[in-house]
């Protein structure tokens, strides 16, 4: 099985026609859905902790050098749009050039944050944003290295539910969170 670094690539990745957007509707659906491109993109991003995909950039999944095939811009846009319509991704710009990948949905991230607070005795505590993203407590958890946009969205969601309050410090580094679980 071919690998991208540590990541095991599925068999279909080596079959040239999967790199061409299929014209027949049923075939195209199978190409995108059903554990093919959609799942592959989500899985890969999850294991590699990739949060943003730039359509015009060198994203490893868009090209298979072994079989010399590359996804056209249209194909990339189509696959990512499929993720967007299922709430597993969001376009970050009007031109659809950058895509935020939600391999965990915002709600899932919110749940992970709550669990993090409980695990670290922070039900009533205070922690900085940076500590959440790169502190010792977050090491080994999914929160480590989380994208700022996503984190902010999850925090906002929890704030609306009254689970925490976000406060700004003197500088960006001082932004913090007070939990009230």
């Amino acid at each position, binding site marked *: 099985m071919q690998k991208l670094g540590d990541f095991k690539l599925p*068999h279909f990745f080596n*079959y*040239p*026609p999967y790199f*061409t957007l299929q014209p*027949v509707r049923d075939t195209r659906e*199978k190409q995108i859905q*059903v554990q093919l491109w959609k799942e592959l993109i989500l899985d890969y991003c999850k294991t590699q902790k990739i949060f943003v995909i730039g359509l015009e950039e060198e994203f490893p999944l868009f090209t298979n050098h072994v079989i010399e095939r590359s996804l056209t811009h249209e194909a990339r846009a189509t696959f990512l749009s499929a993720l967007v319509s299922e709430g597993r991704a969001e376009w970050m710009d009007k031109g659809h050039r950058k895509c935020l990948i939600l391999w965990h949905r915002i709600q899932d991230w919110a749940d992970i944050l709550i669990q993090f607070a409980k695990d670290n005795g922070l039900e009533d505590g205070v922690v900085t944003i940076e500590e959440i993203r790169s502190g010792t407590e977050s090491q080994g958890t999914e929160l480590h290295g989380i994208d700022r946009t996503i984190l902010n969205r999850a925090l906002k969601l929890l704030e609306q539910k009254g689970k925490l309050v976000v406060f700004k410090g003197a500088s960006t580094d001082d932004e913090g969170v007070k939990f009230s679980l």
Partner: protein
Amino acid sequence: MRRRPGIGGLQTHAAARDQFRLLGENVAKIRTDLMKEQLATFRSQLEDFARKHKNDIRKNPAFRSQFHEMCAKVGVDPLASNKGFWAELLGIGDFYYELGVQIVDICLATRAHNGGLINLQELCHLLRQRRKSDRGVVSEDDCLRAISKLKVLGSGFEVISVGKKKLVRSVPTELNKDHNEILELAQAQGFVTVDEVERRLSWSSGRAVDALDTLLDEGLAMIDDGHRDGKRRYWFPCVSPISSLVGVDS
């Protein structure tokens, strides 16, 4: 018999003919009876044989295949019903029933990839993978027998020949001769181009495109526009080797 003149002669002749006819019928009946008796003997000997070699039949596909041939000659079908002597003795009904179920499973699982047409070799390979080593070897002959039993399910389970290979069809798609020839051509590299089809089969462009479009619509072909020579390739998952398979990791 010499004919005597006159009415008497005619009557004798008729009587003689009747007698010959009766004799003929008797002989025929004796022959049939004899044959029936021989057949019955043969059948009971076959049953003895089956009893004695039950394990071999279960475990050895070559043996199993020859056993089936012997049965066929005698007009016995061990798979005809799931009850009765044969099923109980050999559990063979179960064996093929189980095989049939697994074959249907595999065909369904791979349908998204190959459009409902799968290479017999590949099917057997996947079958063996799924069964691992605890049930004895499964041969292509076994697969074919199980599939012939599946035909009663209707919905198009059938084995078709394309060139030297056999493909198992699990969808009601009708393949005509043109489609068949394209599939055979595709066996070499897994794909064809319109040019190649026109050239190798001496077809008009229209004919080639029509046939390929149908195969595309039926989900049996996928297009590939990514080669640097810019030529569109039509790939056929059903003729491609196992390593390009998707979705059947067991």
